[in-house]
């Protein structure tokens, strides 16, 4: 053992060469390899951080990749102005704890300046693309880490781990570079940037098992709690400043949790009594509904909704 470290190691693990790594260990190592490659090959990366579980896992992986050094890039959040207050609070505490720089792109500011128009349905998720691309361009980010996973939907299933975006932030699914072995080609010209998805190969269950294994803190609304909700579009919607029931929609208190924590105006809660991470892991393992289908109204618009948004430069 090393005599270099004066303190006791936090943990000593004996991994026999012939011992199989678990699938989580393999996925973790793959993600860390990708994060390190992007940091080594790009001038100015940033990590999309919303406080949602996938971005929290991404940030956790980044801290492990560069330990004991700091995470060597800022985090970027596109704030719709309709975010859950407790998620914004979690975001700010996390940034503070890790000593990170936070860059915020604000949908509200674009609306106030007249550069974006509020949609008839009040949903602001699709409006995030413009502030996102603006933040990428004005900060000259050439690589942006996202927590996107290929199991989320059919469009993501075909996206590369390093995904090239043109000057307009567009994704061209028919002209993607083949991705071979563990060699990632991130070459790009001025104005282009690359979206990097290190947890592409994780499933929702992998993410939750990893959160459990690593004891990762999440915003509280991922766990069961009592909340005033009303039914709309087959989902339970929270009552809040930007999410008000119509006169015919009855408000009731239910024990719910969220599977994704996007915009309050379009993210639905699911009825659940899963109050701990273990409960959630079991619930997810037993689940029969993919997370976007269950709780994102904007993805229900059409089967090709995500494909269209990605082509336009969405996450």
């Amino acid at each position: 053992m090393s005599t270099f470290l004066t303190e006791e190691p936090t943990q000593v693990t004996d991994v026999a060469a012939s011992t199989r790594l678990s699938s989580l260990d393999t996925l973790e190592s793959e993600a860390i390899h990708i994060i390190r490659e992007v940091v080594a090959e790009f001038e100015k990366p940033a990590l999309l951080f919303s406080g949602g579980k996938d971005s929290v896992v991404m940030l956790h992986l980044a801290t492990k990749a560069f330990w004991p050094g700091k995470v060597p890039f800022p985090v970027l959040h596109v704030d719709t102005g309709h975010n859950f207050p407790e998620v914004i609070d979690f975001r700010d505490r996390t940034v503070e704890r890790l000593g990170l720089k936070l860059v915020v792109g604000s949908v509200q500011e674009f609306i106030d300046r007249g550069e974006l128009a509020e949609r008839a349905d009040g949903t602001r998720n699709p409006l995030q693309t413009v502030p996102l691309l603006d933040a990428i361009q004005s900060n000259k980010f050439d690589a942006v880490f996202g927590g996107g996973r290929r199991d989320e939907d059919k469009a993501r299933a075909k996206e590369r781990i390093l995904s090239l975006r043109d000057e307009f932030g567009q994704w061209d699914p028919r002209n993607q570079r083949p991705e071979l072995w563990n060699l990632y080609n991130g070459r790009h010209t001025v104005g282009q940037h690359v979206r990097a998805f290190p947890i592409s190969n994780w499933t929702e269950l992998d993410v939750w098992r990893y959160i459990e294994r690593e004891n990762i803190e999440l915003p509280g609304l991922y766990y069961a709690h009592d909340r005033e909700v009303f039914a709309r579009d087959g989902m339970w919607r929270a009552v809040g400043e930007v999410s008000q029931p119509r006169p015919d929609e009855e408000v009731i208190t239910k024990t719910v949790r969220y599977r994704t924590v996007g915009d309050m105006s379009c993210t639905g809660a699911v009825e659940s009594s899963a109050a701990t991470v273990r409960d959630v892991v079991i619930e997810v393992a037993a689940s029969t509904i993919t997370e976007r289908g269950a709780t994102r109204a904007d993805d229900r618009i059409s089967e090709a909704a995500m494909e269209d948004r990605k082509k336009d430069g969405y996450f």
Partner: protein
Amino acid sequence: MSTEIDTARAAALLDEAPLAHASLFRFATAGSVDDGKSTLVGRLLHDSKAILADQLDAVARTSADRGFGGSAGGIDLALLTDGLRAEREQGITIDVAYRYFATDRRSFILADCPGHVQYTKNTVTGASTADAVVVLIDARKGVLEQTRRHLSVLQLLRVAHVIVAVNKIDLVDFSESVFREIEADVQKVGRELGLGSDGITDLLVVPVSALDGDNVVERSERTPWYTGPALLEVLETLPAADELESHLESFRFPVQLVIRPQGALAPDAVAAGLDTEAYRDYRAYAGQITEGSVKVGDKVSVLTPGQDPRTTTVIGIDFAGAELLEAAAPQSVAIRLADEFDVARGDTIAAAGTVRESSADLYAALCWLSPKPLREGAKVLVKHGARTVQALVRSVSGKLDLATFNLEGASSLELNDIGHAQLRLAAPLPLENYLHHRRTGAFLVIDPLDGNTLAAGLVKDHPGDHEDERYSI
């Protein structure tokens, strides 16, 4: 038909923790357009309960609209693997799609490679990361030229396990003689290629009906003459390529970056009680082990291209606050060395005395993946490990006829061609024969103009060095 995974079973699975120890296995599928590949993939996902309900609802609606029959509750399983709208409109698959499912024993990543267009590009891409590839054959058609091409590519890429699924066995009345004939043909092609008999790869043949599920997840009573395992059992029990290689290969560790905080430690590490002073001179080399394993105390060589190898000792293997005694591929770790060498990104740390000198002369097989053809005299970029160098294509020495396995004269390579070429590099690289080193023997050829990936490259021995016969196709 139910897609419910019962909560009690889920809880039992998690509590008895087979899931916590289940390993990851990557496989790809390859086949011609009508071999029923999408149906097979749909069947694997469906029968292993990996399909989630909302996807299934959409597929059921579409199947009903199209008046689909079949035995999966009237569901066209092929629709489950359709991806983009452009593909649904044209009824084709454009690109490699990745699917995920898990059984009690393993988590799977499936690269679903379309077979009809750009089969070489897609097969090479899917196979480059695969532990196994499933090749589909239509039982009514047997081994076709396309099958020979697929097997040839898989042999070249040194895929550890090749499984030939003889599909639509129901359409030949579950005939043993039809299966045995195809099986013999497959084994004959395998012998011609050295596939399955070279000690590196193996070749298995399984009769299946993707449409009805025979021998896909469960062994079928309708093929009593087949005593082998069902396809999923095969996939659950084969060793992953890294497991095979941790015994076969020597330690290789391309350095991705140097971790040297110089006192500027992560605030959360400090908050957790890390002593800033003790880490003031901390220097570790971060990377992912590509082959073999390493222990604290091992002698290693540091390879900096253009310099003589330097030998030192591993004094620490760190991973995010944990000190490991030992690590193996494919773990990402940070390694500390006894001597304060100048080690940088692009250098390789390897088991001492197991590597040859870096070279600026590159002999390779190239799988050409771009519509822009390769011409002799072209200037390209070569990305190998963590290094990218300029290169000149000195000569193209031949093109592989994948159906006959003969090397034909050629002076250029077109999309989906596989050929041999000689390149001169602007700086030496620690090149190793792909046959023995799947990671350090692989490289990308990149277009310096637009940055696109032009080819997948497999390093060959220099002519004059001992040339391995199995690799000389």
